[in-house]
Structure formats: structure tokens, C-alpha cells
């Protein structure tokens, strides 16, 4: 299996602060890989390492087989990068920015750019700095599509976008990526959008990887159970094997687990907690994400 991205034991500190610890991941060609996590969990740090803007404290990242902190210009040509906040040369106009980028990429597909821009209804001489975040996101996406890269890296693409532009962004991305068999590596904290596009996912928690699996496995295999037992309040310990997370509200206890009802009941029983009636409550992916990462 060909891996476009491969990170081994990636660890990074900002001063004394540990941000990433032993992160391992592989992104296969043609897959859409999503890193999900709340803000400050190291998503952007991972992207910055991947793109050579940070050198990891230890560990290694390979992109197209090259070490990420010394990517050659030829390899960078194969990567379409969307920076956090839809960063663009805001002193340029719509036309100027297209003129500028076109000269760097031999397979430049101007039509992709102008198709997207046409929908904005703005003049060619409209300055990027005078655009809303949503409009700017379309410009940046158009530039990436026109570049026709093999790998798209999208850092928190949903940041600052209203629901309309988020939907538009996802719609175009989905169509483009599936049609052209591109590899995508994206980060986001808005789960319901990612659900529509991502094949594989990792969920990052504070200084650790919480989960690494295809999204469908997460949706089907992760459960939320509720029961009431006043004596069990505060007595259930979170462990990686059975109880992934636990929440208390008065005598109502909510458990998150990859195990079946029967396994969870047995686990609780071995810890001296008897549960007569436990109900499984269906979850959306967003609720599953909160169940994994916690509300705080």
C-alpha cells in the first residue's frame, strides 16, 4: 500500500509544553483522512510539521517519501495547502492572485478557479482583503483546485465560515476529490461536515491520540449508555478498555464505550456496581466526538 503521508512517533513541545506525543499515522493514496480534535489539541501543529514550518522535537514525518522539514520544491508542487484562516495574499485582486499562482504550476487548470469565482459574482479587480471570510475561502479553494495537486492539506477549513459557505466548501471538495481520486488530509473541529467526506479519522485529545479508525467503524461501534444509580455516582473509573468516558448528572449516569451492553454491565458488576436497566442512546457523530473528547 502506497502511503502519501507517514508520521512515526511524532512528539512536539512548545518550550516545556507537550503538544504531541508519539503520534503515528499513515495516509494511503486516494483516501480522505481527517484529524479531529478540540482547539489546542495539536491539529495545526501536526500540519505545520507536515509542511516543514516546524521541526518536531522527536519523531519523523514523511510526505511523498521526503522528510517533511526539507520538502523539495517539486514535492511542494504536488501539495495544495489551505492554511488556517483561509490565508491568502490579501493585497492582490482576484485576477492578480490567479496570474501569480498560475506561473508556479505546470498543470494549472484556470477553469476550476474561475468556475468557483464566477459563483461569487465579484469583479476580477476585487481585492481579497475586501472579501468576507466565506468569499476568501472560495478563492483559496479555487486556487488549490486549479493547482491540480495530488495531495490536499486543509487546516481547519471550517474556521470562520457560516453554515452556507461551509456546506458549499464541502460540496465542492467532495465532488473534486472523488472525481479526481485525490488524497486529502484535513483537520477540523466541526464534526458534522467532516462526516460527509472523511474515510479515515484520528481523534486527538490532550497530549494523546484518542482514536484511530475509519469513520464508519466509529459510528457503528461506539455506544452511549444511560442508567440511574445513585450509589454509582463518582464510582466509575474511565479506562481505555471498556469505559471510554463517563458523565454524571444527579443520579443519571452516561457511559461511552466501544463494548456491548452486556460487556459494559459485566465490567461494572466486577467493580461492584449493579445495573438493572441500561439504555443505549443513539448518537450523531458529533455526540460521539464529544463523548470521546469530553465536554470541557
Amino acid at each position: 500500500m502506497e502511503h502519501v503521508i507517514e508520521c512515526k512517533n511524532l512528539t512536539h513541545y512548545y518550550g516545556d509544553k507537550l503538544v504531541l506525543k508519539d503520534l503515528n499515522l499513515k495516509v494511503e493514496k486516494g483516501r480522505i483522512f481527517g484529524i479531529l480534535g478540540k482547539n489546542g489539541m495539536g491539529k495545526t501543529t501536526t500540519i505545520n510539521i507536515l509542511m516543514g514550518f516546524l521541526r518536531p522535537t522527536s519523531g519523523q514525518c514523511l510526505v511523498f517519501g521526503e522528510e517533511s522539514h526539507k520538502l523539495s520544491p517539486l514535492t511542494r508542487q504536488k501539495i495544495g495547502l489551505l492554511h488556517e484562516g483561509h490565508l491568502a495574499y490579501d493585497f492582490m485582486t482576484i485576477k492578480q492572485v490567479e496570474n501569480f499562482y498560475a506561473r508556479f504550476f505546470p498543470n494549472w487548470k484556470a477553469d476550476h478557479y474561475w468556475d468557483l469565482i464566477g459563483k461569487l459574482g465579484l469583479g476580477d479587480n476585487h481585492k481579497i482583503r475586501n472579501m468576507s471570510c466565506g468569499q476568501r475561502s472560495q478563492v483559496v479553494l479555487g486556487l488549490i483546485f486549479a493547482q491540480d495537486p495530488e495531495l490536499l492539506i486543509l487546516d481547519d477549513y471550517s474556521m470562520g465560515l457560516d453554515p452556507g459557505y461551509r456546506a458549499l466548501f464541502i460540496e465542492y471538495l467532495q465532488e473534486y476529490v472523488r472525481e479526481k481520486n485525490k488524497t486529502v488530509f484535513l483537520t477540523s473541529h466541526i464534526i458534522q461536515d467532516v462526516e460527509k467526506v472523511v474515510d479515515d479519522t484520528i481523534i486527538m485529545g490532550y497530549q494523546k491520540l484518542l482514536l484511530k479508525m475509519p469513520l464508519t467503524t466509529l459510528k457503528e461501534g461506539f455506544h452511549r449508555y444511560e442508567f440511574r444509580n445513585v450509589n454509582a455516582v463518582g464510582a466509575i473509573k474511565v479506562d481505555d478498555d471498556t469505559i471510554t468516558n463517563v458523565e454524571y448528572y444527579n443520579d443519571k449516569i452516561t457511559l461511552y464505550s466501544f463494548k456491548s451492553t452486556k460487556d459494559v454491565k459485566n465490567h461494572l458488576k466486577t467493580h461492584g456496581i449493579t445495573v438493572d436497566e441500561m439504555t443505549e442512546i443513539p448518537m450523531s457523530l458529533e455526540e460521539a466526538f464529544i463523548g470521546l473528547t469530553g465536554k470541557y
Partner: protein
Amino acid sequence: MLKAILYKEWIKLRWAVIMIAGLTVLSLAYTIGMISYYVEFQGAFSNWMFVIGKSLLLKNIVFVKVLPLITGLVFALIQFVPEMNNKRMRLSYHLPISEKKLLISSTGFGYMFLLIEIVFLFFGLWLVISMTYPAEIVHKVLMTTIPWFLGGSAMYFMASFIILEPTWVYRIIYAVAAYGLIELNFRASTYDQYQRLWVLILIVAVMPFTIMFAGHRFRRGSK
């Protein structure tokens, strides 16, 4: 690719280039006016006493002294502040062009306009002064202006270096050092005081490398 980089820099610089070009022409016109005034209305003796003896000519070409300095600062600000704002420089660093080529072409392009201004001022001044004064005076005045032009160049390189530096603490330290290095070029109060111009030239020649250093620090995410 090089053309694209120059295109981007031109978009940022064009209005400043036009304004500075206008100011350069105006400052030369002012110098012509002042010299004509001394020659026409003050007479030969006054000319010798004040213009030559008391370095009055130097005081009247003050625009030649400060213009390259202002230009160097303005060009560096216009070129690199937008790049550092929101760390936009990362966009440039992701382009399929080597870091070295990117920085050399960007700063080279900005410096080229400053150099054009310097050459224009130097030869303009030579033309203006040589119409009235003897060759010895022309030589002394022009030799006096060379450190000012070096000061303008130093301002461009140091300002670019400081702006591209990713951390504020280092920026402040560099700014103090830059002040000292630039000020070296503006110490003369009378004609042709510098006997060791080559030292100043050497210092300015080393400065572009500092831009590479700051650019590299930014690329590596230094904090």
C-alpha cells in the same frame, strides 16, 4: 517562477515606487534651485565662504541625505509587513521555489528600485553641482554622499531583516544593533570626512545575509 515573485513584489511596491520617484525628482529640483539662488544672489565670495567653507551646500542637499533612508524603510515595510501579517510568509514558503531564491528575488527586486534612486540622485547631483562648482568640490560633495547612500541601503536590509525575524525579543535586539550600524553612515558634518569608506561598504555588503538568516528562522518556526 521568478517572474511571478517579481510580479507579486511589484503589486506591493508600485505606488511607493511612483511616489518615491516623484520625491526624488523634486529633491533634485530643490537642490538646483538652491544652488542657483546662491550663485545668482549671493555672489562668488559668499559662495566660497558659506557654501564651501561652512558646508552650506551639504545642508541644502539634505533631501539627498534622507531620501534613500526613507525609501529603504518604506520599501522594507511595504514588502515584508504584509508577508509577516498573519504569518502570510508561509504562503510564499509553500510555493515550489527554493527558500533562497524566494528571498533573494524579493529583496533583490526591492533593492533594485532603491539602487535606481541612488544612481539617479548621485548622477543628478553630479550634473547639478558640476555645472557651477569646480571638479574638486564636486568630488568632495559626491564622496560625502556615498555613506548616505550606503545608509539607505543599510536601512533597507536591516528593516527587512527585523521585519522577517519571527520573535519580538530578537527584533528589539536587532533594531538596537541596526540603529548603530545605520548611524555610522551619517556622522560626517563637513565634506568628505570618511577616510575608510570600504569599511562601511563591507558592513552593508554583509547585511543581505541577515535576511536569509531571519527567513530561515521563520521557516523553521523559531519562537
